[in-house]
């Protein structure tokens, strides 16, 4: 599919599907990274093609690094590149992939299918304990670990970022997710009431 010149509208942007939903910013801060550059490959040939580009692939459910991009290995043949601050590098990889001939895997369309949000703030640990059943304490869940699990009752991928926890989930549930996080944040410290 060719590159687009048209305007992209993500859920939390004005005119987006969740445009009227406010993101909380209190003891718990929820921020939206859905529009940030990322690119994923999935299916036979994906890992080999990336490796041929010099990308060192981590083990499944671990995060590696490639020229400032985070390399998320979600499955043997399911790799997602996140380029929060390395958009140009990502664009190069993407262009190389588009120009390449098969086998090269297939686009996973994660940049369209998944919202990318970040949870941070002083109430982070308490909020994550409420949102996710996994043991995410630092001694159990490291900086390069990935959990494909459930966050806020929906399927999600979560991992640590320097600021907090990043969460990838079904983009169509963006408004729901923001409400679920706000509800949890509203409860912190209030349970005896």
């Amino acid at each position, binding site marked *: 599919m060719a590159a687009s010149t048209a305007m992209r509208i993500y859920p939390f942007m004005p005119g987006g599907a969740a445009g009227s939903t406010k993101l909380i910013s209190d003891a718990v801060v929820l921020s939206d990274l859905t529009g940030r550059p990322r690119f994923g490959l999935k299916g036979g040939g994906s890992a080999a093609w990336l490796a041929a580009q010099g990308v060192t692939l981590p083990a499944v459910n671990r995060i590696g690094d490639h020229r400032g991009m985070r390399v998320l290995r979600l*499955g043997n043949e399911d790799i997602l590149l996140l380029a929060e601050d390395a958009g140009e590098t990502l664009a190069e990889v993407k262009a190389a992939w588009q120009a390449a001939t098969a086998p090269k895997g297939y686009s996973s369309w994660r940049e369209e299918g998944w919202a990318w949000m970040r949870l941070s703030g002083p109430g982070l640990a308490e909020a994550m304990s409420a949102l996710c*059943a996994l043991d995410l304490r630092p001694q159990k869940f490291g900086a390069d670990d990935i959990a*494909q699990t*459930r966050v806020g009752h929906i399927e999600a991928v979560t991992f640590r970022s320097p600021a907090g926890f990043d969460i990838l989930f079904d983009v169509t549930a963006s408004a729901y997710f923001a409400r679920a996080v706000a509800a949890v944040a509203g409860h912190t410290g209030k349970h005896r009431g």
Partner: protein
Amino acid sequence: MKLLTCPMNGLRNIDEFQSFGPVRARPDPDATADTEWSRHLFRAENRKGIVTEWWRHVPSNYFFLAERDLVSNEIICTFDASELRDRA
């Protein structure tokens, strides 16, 4: 909440998984009489004891197998589908 060890994602609460039921032998449809075929469709692997069954880890959409005791609910082991033939 019971725990289940996903061969790909590790130890998780069982509510992250979906059961796809016991592994079933699939008879050759063209070499099976009608009554045998309907038996195949409706028969149930329900013996007290250990069954090998399909599970899906829903968040990662990974399918694997587990040996589980239908009476005690003990999960004896879990393994990737590629091992199924080795075990058979």
